[in-house]
């Protein structure tokens, strides 16, 4: 399953710390980095991961959060408002 792991900001901004954090995340998640440019720019590690490994990735101190790439985002559906004026 695709996962987005967000590193803590102070780590994401430090190139050396960022690379070290990346290795820890990839190792804990047994994943490969999907979008290197996204990682460099935002400190977000995107890749395929076994969902069972999610908690071990979240437990890494430099990880701010790990979110599944779920198909939940949809357009804000246009709705009718009965009180047209």
């Amino acid at each position: 399953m695709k996962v987005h792991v967000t590193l803590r900001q102070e780590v994401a901004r430090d190139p050396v710390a960022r690379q070290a954090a990346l290795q820890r995340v990839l190792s804990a998640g047994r994943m490969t980095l999907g979008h290197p440019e996204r990682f460099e720019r935002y400190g977000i590690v995107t890749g395929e991961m076994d969902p069972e490994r999610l908690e071990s990735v979240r437990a890494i101190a430099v990880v701010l959060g790990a979110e599944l790439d779920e198909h939940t985002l949809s357009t804000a559906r246009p709705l009718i408002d009965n009180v047209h004026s």
Partner: protein
Amino acid sequence: MRHIVVFREPSARNTSLLSSVLGGSELRRGRARDGTTLLRARQLGCEAPRVYERLGVAVADLDGDQIGRLERLDSVAAVVPNNRCFVPASAVTVRATRSSSRPDPAHSWCLDLIGVSPDLVRLGRGATVAVLDTGIDLGHPDLAKRLQQNGQAVSFVPGESVHDGHGHGTHCAGVVGGPRRSRSGTRYGVAPEVRLLVGKVLSDLGTGFTDWILEGIDWAAANGARAISLSCLSNRSAGEPHSVVYERVAESLLESSPGTLLLAPTGNASARPWHTQPVDNPAACPSLVAVAAVRRARQVASFSGRQMDEAGEVNLSAPGVGVHSAWTGGGFRSLSGTSMAVPHVAGVAALYLEERPSLTALELRRALESRARPLGDARDYGRGLVQASAGLAGQAGPDR
């Protein structure tokens, strides 16, 4: 107030049960249709109570005492307010188009509301705004030519071209940058000369993955978008945290120089006056601008999301009820939704950037918020109704 009585099971006894609680004076008036029984209305002008026997449900005007008595009955599972029901876009649009009234056929009321008068000289020249949505109708008479001349369109949805098979993206793009002279006869575009970037991040079904959306945001920022209209959402419950992924991206773009401002809808799940829903993700992220929808009377739209917790703040309001714009297939439709409010703010951002190109994303956000017209409770309206006509005179910065 009208309520729904939910019985534990469908039964012919439900009618007499409801009748007895309503005072016993209501007599069975007859069957409206098979399986439905109407009771006598208590007073003139009141809707008659109706029992749907096969469904095990009844609809009636109830006072507090009657609600309490019904709730205490073993055969009643629940008594709930008769919430307004909304229908999805495909069914709404036709009706909305038929019923939309435009007092000034040459100019949308939405533009008047945000201070875009027909003689406003600012048209978004030199500004770049992205619309990340379901794509765009590449053959639309109002949009196709100007997209070729001054714009770019890319799809991030695997297997789908940038052409909009849904309509939502075309509508939003039209609100941002529709032409001064529309084939529909009504101007609806806030910034007709803006450079428009269109990223398809939601499929023709209107849904998308975070991955596609992040790709679209990154592409738009890399191609010079100074504001991004992102009319999509994922539902969030009160107390749930905001998305850290979107917050990271939005924060990075907001703090970069000159930076890019992300705008997203507060959500459409409220049903005022009965209940409100908190601001959805990604709008709940503090670094995004959360946009609420208002009606023509400058009142919050019944469906618009509200600030109900620490995470989900409302920042600005814009027109979002009966909004006229382009639609896929070369046509036009009037739609309602906080989705429609977001591109109005993005268009106004383009007007501000035309006046002062050096505005950073942070300054742009402050300018939009400080020049908004206050409307009321900040939990509903944020800083108020976005205003295009309020100039940036006095704003710090070298260029004017």
